[in-house]
């Protein structure tokens, strides 16, 4: 690794609005050769520079099995993300990474997979989901449970329809509060567990979402017989450097940006401030 903090220049190849405040950006490194050789694992993240505003970590939302596209989904929450949302297709940003450990796709081979996403927690799972779907025959049963506050807050609406139409996976979607025209489930994500059949013994569960949702989902899964090692999540912390130097994301002596962000629940339980 040459220069730890030097970003590569990338262009915004395309953008898609997911919700009123969330947008998916497809990035392409300006240097074609670099773009073609860029590789990452689902669950890893990139440090995205908006020049003049610094950089911030965002997870890869696309799958390495579709190397044309480096995608990330970003909600407007602060200065940098606001600035990012004002950029247009063709504008230049900086990209540094991949950072973090990512999901262990190999270890999931042959297993049943349960994806549980909440709100803006679906993007890190989306990369893994497409990865798995692109190698569908290597994995067992696939269940995707996804919830958001309202139907408007659901991200990847088109893809949710695509997944729903596929016969090789089970997709359940719920919202906390319905809107007019919503005919689907209403209720928190854990309520979906009663609407499907869980097989704790053979399943790896991937849980991403807001901390409070993760807490309830994990509790529920453990009570239903999942082993702590089989419940896998990504942790979020305030991050700056992404390379284990700045110390913002440290929990105990672990750095979320290096030792994580993907942990199983047994590891998470052992992380102490």
């Amino acid at each position, binding site marked *: *690794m*040459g*220069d*730890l*903090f*030097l*970003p*590569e*220049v990338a262009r915004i190849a395309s953008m898609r609005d997911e919700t009123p405040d969330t947008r998916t950006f497809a990035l392409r490194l*300006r240097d074609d050769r670099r773009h073609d050789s860029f590789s990452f694992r689902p669950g890893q993240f990139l440090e995205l*520079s908006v*020049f*003049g*505003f*610094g*950089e*911030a970590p965002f997870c890869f939302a696309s799958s390495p099995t579709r190397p044309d596209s480096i995608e990330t989904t970003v909600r407007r*929450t*602060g200065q940098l*993300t606001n600035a990012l949302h004002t950029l247009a297709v063709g504008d*230049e940003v*900086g990209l540094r990474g991949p950072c973090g450990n990512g999901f262990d796709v190999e270890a999931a081979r042959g297993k049943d997979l349960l994806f549980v996403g909440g709100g803006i927690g679906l993007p890190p799972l989306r990369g893994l989901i497409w990865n798995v779907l692109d190698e569908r025959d290597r994995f067992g049963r696939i269940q995707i449970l996804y919830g958001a506050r309202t139907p408007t807050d659901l991200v990847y609406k088109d893809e949710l329809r695509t997944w729903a139409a596929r016969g090789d996976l089970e997709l359940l979607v719920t919202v906390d509060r319905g809107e007019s025209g919503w005919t689907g489930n209403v209720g928190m994500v854990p309520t979906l567990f009663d609407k499907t059949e869980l097989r704790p013994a053979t399943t790896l569960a991937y849980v991403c979402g*807001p*901390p409070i949702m993760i807490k309830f989902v994990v509790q529920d899964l453990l009570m239903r017989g999942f082993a702590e090692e089989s419940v896998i999540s990504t942790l*979020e*912390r*305030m991050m*700056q*450097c992404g*390379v*284990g*130097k*700045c*110390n*913002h994301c*440290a*929990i*105990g*002596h672990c750095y979320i940006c*290096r030792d994580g962000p993907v942990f199983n629940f047994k590891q998470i339980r052992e992380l*102490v*401030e």
Partner: protein
Amino acid sequence: MRPANDVQGRDPGASRLLVKSDLVSWIRRLMDDAEVIAPAAGAGGDLMFGPVTDPASVWLGPGNPLQPPKQFVLPQTDPIVRIERNGGGVQVSSISDERARVIFGMRSCDARGMAYLRRMQATDLPDDSYLRRADRIAVVTLACTTPCTLGFCVCCDAGPFARDGHDVQLVDLGDRFLAEGATERGRAMVADAPFRPATQGDVVRRDELEREAERHFGDESAHLGAAMRRISTRRVAEELWEAMSPWCFECGGCNFICPTCYCFSVKDRCQDHGWERCRTWDSCQYSAFTLEASGHNPRERRKERIKRRFFHKVSAQYYQRDGAVGCVGCGRCVQTCLGTTDMPAVVAAIRKGVWHG
């Protein structure tokens, strides 16, 4: 990599002598090839490390500047990436600082601190530009033959004589300095005239001085070992952290003057034709250090932040990860702490189980 200093197998023949009257001419010679940084009395009478313009102003008397030489490897505002807009596109390039420098008159605690920082930047993902900068710096330490008022380096194995992190160590023998080259670079620095070989008597005197200096520290010590056991096994009562928290004013000074603290944030600074991305010192004692964009803050309470600081500095977990305890016993936090939560005070409290006991 800097070659390790083999103190145990010290070759007395490697020790050299410099008559004090030749000191200025030696510094001047060092200035020919490198920027020499040394302590000198600055504005307000404050002792400060800074580039030497007049070798005669270099201060090698008692005392150590309040601001450690950390700023020369890790400046408070440190440009790391240049971002230039030209024409249609953006050009990015690393900013590196590979000036040849000598830090002169550093004390063993600070040399240990520099070694700690270097190790930290070299492990896991190495920060090459940091390493290039740090490795261009030759370190000439001055052994502490009389202990400073607030230091406790003996408890951290960081002094009073340097064991690592230096190229040359000077020992004040009265009218002359014993000069020990600890690295190849250091040995070259003291090879030629006006240096001459040391006598056996000089070397014996040096060892006496070291023993005397160690003895002078007496009971003034921070019992880091006892604290480390309790912190590592999380056997420090929550009430104790709670009791400390109103005595911390969250100034961040303990971090900023600490020779081993390196936490930072990254910010873009506006330039004429773009920006410079800067690494800037940050403090784990600030509430916003862990504040997330969502507003959630995992270390919202001050006692959690104090606990964090001491976990990083004196836990066995970090000892294993970083290879050393994160304190060099320089005692600066005792002076700069706006409250009373400096290293010796907190370590004593952990050992005794009572705050301000």
